[in-house]
């Protein structure tokens, strides 16, 4: 019987395992389906990682390397090339690897499976079904790890960070990136990536546009048609632009990967597609915690690693002592806030401030984020110059101000 099993050896899983180990937890196992640790960071060869955590700018592999080196010095057991097939609410983990099928158990579990990319099917892009259409992350792996050339004339659909990073990457590899096409009137990527990945190389970004047709010749992409859309995403007739190309990269969003969570009976939030979590990253199943992109899609690996620490501390506490909470506060969100993490808070707790993160579904200028208790009394407020969907917003909520008779808090935004 393990004290803790961590599923996934990316930034979330490694950070969680290290923290649990530092806190003195003894029998820790990390399970990873890939043949090495590091997760998605291994293919994110660009820099920009670690500014918060290590106070220096690292590439993805360097960032992962910091954790991998540390974990190799500990007694944490790492099981590579191993797929978790099933998980149940009693914290039994069913695994498959070259040694066969096994059932193992732990006192606590941390889910750190990350997320996966949305595909062409998810947005039903019309057109021919030839080769040359990749998700941006798949293309990134082919290019950065397998050393394949992905294409030479490229159109990128979506302006998420991976798409922007790939625009620069393909340009450096000698490809011509002809356009980045974004259906919204704003980007879902970080502003600095628009600057250093598109503008640096004079790559045009078409806002309020989408791909309305993909044409293939000899079974390979030969051109795309892009069209302007209105505010309701209806295609505007007559706005078509034809772009000859051989490759289409899709950067159209990520979905937390929660098949195992669902198997264990964990309640999933339909908004985040990740588990409903408490302030300590515990899921609806006692003793199963989660962190990183399996919970919600983060902007920064640094924040994933920090969230993982929180989950690990809670898991350590769970293993060593009885839980003693008396009641649960629900965290509600009003539009344009799309969701919050956590969705629930245990009370009473030691901490006076609780981190709450959220995204909005549109761009806001000068505004005030407010938190009200169920009686409608505003208990805290936070000024912001802007809030944009592409950047995860964070506030610290003073739970100490939530009075006993309250059963929920609501987060909302007032624009100036």
């Amino acid at each position, binding site marked *: 019987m393990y004290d803790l099993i961590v599923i996934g050896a990316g930034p979330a899983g490694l950070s969680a395992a290290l923290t649990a180990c530092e806190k003195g937890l003894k029998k820790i196992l990390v399970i990873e389906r890939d043949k090495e640790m590091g997760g998605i960071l291994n293919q994110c060869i660009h820099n920009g990682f670690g500014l918060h955590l290590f106070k220096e700018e690292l590439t993805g592999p360097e960032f992962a*390397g910091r954790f991998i080196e540390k974990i190799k010095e500990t007694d944490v057991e790492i099981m590579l090339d191993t797929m978790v097939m099933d998980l149940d609410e009693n914290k039994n983990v069913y695994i498959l690897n070259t040694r066969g099928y096994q059932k193992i158990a732990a006192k606590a579990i941390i889910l750190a499976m990350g997320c996966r990319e949305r595909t062409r099917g998810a947005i039903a892009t019309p057109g021919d079904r030839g080769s040359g259409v990749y998700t941006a992350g798949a293309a990134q792996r082919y*290019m950065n790890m397998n050393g394949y050339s992905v294409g030479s004339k490229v159109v990128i659909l979506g302006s998420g960070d991976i798409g922007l990073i790939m625009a620069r990457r393909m340009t*450096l590899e000698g490809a011509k990136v002809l356009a980045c096409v974004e259906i919204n009137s704003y980007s879902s990527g970080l502003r600095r990536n628009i600057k250093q990945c598109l503008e640096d190389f004079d790559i045009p970004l078409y806002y309020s546009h989408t791909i309305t047709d993909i044409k293939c010749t000899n079974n390979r992409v030969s051109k795309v048609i892009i069209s302007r859309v209105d505010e309701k995403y209806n295609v505007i007739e007559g706005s078509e632009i034809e772009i000859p190309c051989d490759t289409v990269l899709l950067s159209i969003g990520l979905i937390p990967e929660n098949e195992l969570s669902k198997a264990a009976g964990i309640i999933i939030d339909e908004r985040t597609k990740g588990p409903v979590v408490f302030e300590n990253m515990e899921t609806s199943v006692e003793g199963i915690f989660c962190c990183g992109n399996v919970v919600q899609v983060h902007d920064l690996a640094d924040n994933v690693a920090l969230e993982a620490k929180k989950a690990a501390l809670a898991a350590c506490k769970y293993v060593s002592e009885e839980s003693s909470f008396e009641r649960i506060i629900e965290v509600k969100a009003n539009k344009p806030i799309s969701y919050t993490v956590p969705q629930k808070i245990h009370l009473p707790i030691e901490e006076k401030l609780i981190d709450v993160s959220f995204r909005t579904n549109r761009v806001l200028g000068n505004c005030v984020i407010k938190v009200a208790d169920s009686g409608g009394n505003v208990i805290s407020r936070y000024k912001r110059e802007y809030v944009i969907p592409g950047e995860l917003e964070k506030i610290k909520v003073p739970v100490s101000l939530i009075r006993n008779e309250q059963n929920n808090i609501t987060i909302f935004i007032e624009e100036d």
Partner: protein
Amino acid sequence: MIELICIGCPKGCKLLVDENNNYSVTGHSCQIGVEYGRSKILNPTRVLTTIVRIENAIHNSLPVKSSKPLPKDKLIEAAKALKNVVVKAPVKTNEIIVKNILDTGIDIIATRDM
């Protein structure tokens, strides 16, 4: 006035650089913004991150970077120069892969063990 987005960290501050006033910077949240704003106008540079071929390793490609930021207009040329570089495993993080790329005085180094 030249408007810039600082890329020093993910915050992405909107900087204003006054080219008529000794390139003074406003809109920054920290010193990185001041330095970025000035150098961006006077001498734009970027860290190059790319790959080189590697043999006898777990993958076909080894991730590398420039040990310091390169002049922005040399990025594509430098990436091109690295296309024919082949190394053999094992390689350690920070190991120099190409010394003095394009005579810039800057090295290309490995960013992981492989």
